[in-house]
């Protein structure tokens, strides 16, 4: 069994940091106003799903497992008939709640997660899987261990396939055994195959949407796209596939009218309530047509390719998809990121790259210098922007984005 981290001190921590009054985040209702912008009628059930997400009652039968990065294999959870819920959240209100527990200068995502856990928003979770990708996340495991049972998944920092694939397979098999033993379900090869089929279907749908958005970005605008991504965090996969399929079918016929410059949004992920970047980009008439972020592209683009359909073969294919194929900057992935950016821009003839750094998240920021120099070499306009969840620097962001647009447009003539 996974040993708890702070066995001795759990009670002390819980007593002192016991849950305060639950934070009312009005910011959430305010965020739903994006609903009016979306032209597609089939997007409504996605927005409805968001509201329902905040009232998940713990039903007896299905168990919810919280996890964070796309390093964690969803297929194993689905195979054990558990409900995976992704907990990465970027809400300004919750970061303030988190600041009561953690000191100020810590990655805002970690603060908002701690805020949520210590204000028992996530009571319905049975287990939380924390990957050891970046440093604050490893500390998060210890932070959350008083509140919830934690399983710590540590893939190591090297994403090279040849040296580490056996290590990863052992890691995933141990994780799978732990899940089966904890939840007493005998998931075998058949369940794994079904789970992989589901995720592959999701990948197929995502690719269609991803390519359609590049062709005509304003048909499925950026807000709808990121809302769909956010809904896939907690919604059941089949349900999500059908809804997304409907959105794609509806959007297929429409054609794009916008002549705005097409932007590739790279860097740290944009998750539902924190749509500040999308707002400002839209005001600056820049069209986000594609993105390389771990919550959306990194998680959905690579299918699980099963060549060896034995049980260990499937688990090995999963490690390839989730760790070797991941674009998380916490692993040694800089060359892969730069390749991806250059290739996506050249292949789809985009106009520029906006690199969104989350303030206080050093992992993304250190990459900007290399990416800046390489893109300058390849004559691709590049703008790196550092910002937080708060709304105070919208003015500065707008000047940057408008200047960037002017650079692109003058570059075009």
């Amino acid at each position, binding site marked *: 069994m996974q040993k708890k981290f702070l066995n001795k001190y759990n009670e002390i921590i819980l007593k002192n940091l016991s849950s305060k009054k639950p934070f009312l985040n009005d910011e959430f209702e305010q965020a739903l106003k994006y609903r009016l912008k979306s032209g597609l009628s089939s997007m409504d059930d996605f927005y409805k799903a968001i509201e329902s997400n905040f009232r998940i009652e713990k039903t007896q039968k299905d168990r919810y497992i919280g996890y964070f990065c796309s390093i964690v294999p969803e297929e194993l959870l689905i195979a054990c008939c558990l409900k995976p819920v992704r907990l990465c959240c970027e809400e300004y209100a919750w970061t303030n709640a988190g600041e009561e527990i953690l000191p100020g200068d810590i990655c805002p995502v970690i603060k908002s997660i701690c805020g949520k856990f210590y204000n028992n928003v996530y009571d319905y979770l049975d287990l939380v899987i924390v990957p050891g990708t970046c440093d604050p996340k490893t500390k998060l495991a210890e932070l959350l261990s008083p509140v919830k049972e934690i399983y710590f998944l540590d893939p190591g920092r090297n994403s090279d396939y040849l040296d580490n694939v056996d290590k990863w397979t052992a890691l995933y098999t141990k994780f799978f055994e732990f899940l089966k033993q904890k939840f007493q379900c005998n998931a075998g090869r058949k369940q794994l195959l079904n789970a992989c089929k589901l995720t592959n279907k999701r990948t197929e749908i995502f690719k269609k949407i991803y*390519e359609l958005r590049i062709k005509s970005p304003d048909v499925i605008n950026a807000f709808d796209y990121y809302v769909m991504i956010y809904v896939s965090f907690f919604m059941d996969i089949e349900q999500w596939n059908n809804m997304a399929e409907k959105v794609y079918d509806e959007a297929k016929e429409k054609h794009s009218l916008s002549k705005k410059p097409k932007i590739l949004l790279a860097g740290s992920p944009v998750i539902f309530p924190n749509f500040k970047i999308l707002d400002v980009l839209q005001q600056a008439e820049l069209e986000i047509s594609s993105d390389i972020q771990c919550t959306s592209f990194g998680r959905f*683009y690579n299918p699980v390719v099963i060549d060896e359909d034995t*049980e260990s073969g499937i688990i090995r294919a999963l490690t390839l998809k989730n760790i070797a194929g991941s674009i998380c900057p916490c692993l040694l992935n800089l060359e892969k990121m730069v390749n991806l950016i250059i290739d996506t821009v050249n*292949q789809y003839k985009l106009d520029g790259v906006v690199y969104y750094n989350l303030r206080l998240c050093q992992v993304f920021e250190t990459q900007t210098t290399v990416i800046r120099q390489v893109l300058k070499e390849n004559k691709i306009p590049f703008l790196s922007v550092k910002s937080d969840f708060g709304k105070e620097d919208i003015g500065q962001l707008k000047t940057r984005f408008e200047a960037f647009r002017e650079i692109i447009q003058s570059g075009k003539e």
Partner: protein
Amino acid sequence: MNKISISRRIVQVICLILLVYGGYIFKDWKQSAEAQKQSIFPSLNAPEGSISTTKFEKGSILWPSGATPVIENYPPTLVCRFNPNGGMFKACILHFFSENLTWRTSIKYLLPYITLFVLLCFLFGRAWCGWVCPIGTVGDFLTFLRRKMNIPVKRFPANFRMNLSFTGYVLMVIALTISTLIGMPNLARYQCYWFLPYCQICPARLICPMFGLIKPNWKDFSTGITTTFTILAWIVLGFFIAAFYWGRRVWCHMCPVGLINSWFNKGCGIELHKKAVKCIKCGYCADVCPMGLTKMYEIDKDTIYNQTGCIMCMRCIEVCPRKGCLSVKFFGKKFFLRRKTDAEKVSQQVQ
């Protein structure tokens, strides 16, 4: 199953049926004696009175079916004289070399055969192993069985594969030297036992007759030499089955015909290209390669990654999630064995 492997499996099955049951299917096509004379390929048979002819009575160890093949020629794949009813082609290239070394036929009669062999290898390189070889198809079926029985694959390190190819070369050299030795007059009397040494221990000798449901002569313990050959044949057959059962295509590292093909792999018509910019190092290609090669994963610049071990099964191209990263060209012209998925169609209009 993606599109490339569907077309590959179809080709494999068709070739299996053709090469093994060719003898029955094309019975009336068999070349009559005088047609043999006009054909550009001279008829190669043993010099008069040589001992090896006596060995060829029907049912003997080297000629179980006793029928003549449809085409008296030697393709660059492991097809055997032990096929039921003579099979489609006479035999594999190693049989051709050891036979003619024993009979000491002059080079000029061998030239047409060698030229045809080199031409076929130059066009398709080792694709013969991946797409045509019936023994490989049998092996793939064994791998398919293992997967269905949920037995995990055994992956071998690179140096193990080096040793295997080394053994393959050693076997080939021993076989060819023996066949030249017994060609000499004063050693001629050994021909009856030592003729075609490699064929006697090759797994195909025991597998091919099984297709025709005729009993391969499993054991021949009459003299010291034949017992040794049978024991060796059993050991090699056991290794063949174990190799295909636990590892994928391990036998192909050792099979001499494949080794001869692999000399043409780098320069052959089929070129496997990689665009390093598109690669995100996800490792799918190296994981899926039945021969366990990793060059297509490691190279960082835009090159052709043909290598001698590759049997051109194109699983890596089919499996790569990044469109356009790995591609295959035939003498420079791009060709797609697979239909485009609709996601690719949408992106096609984007360009």
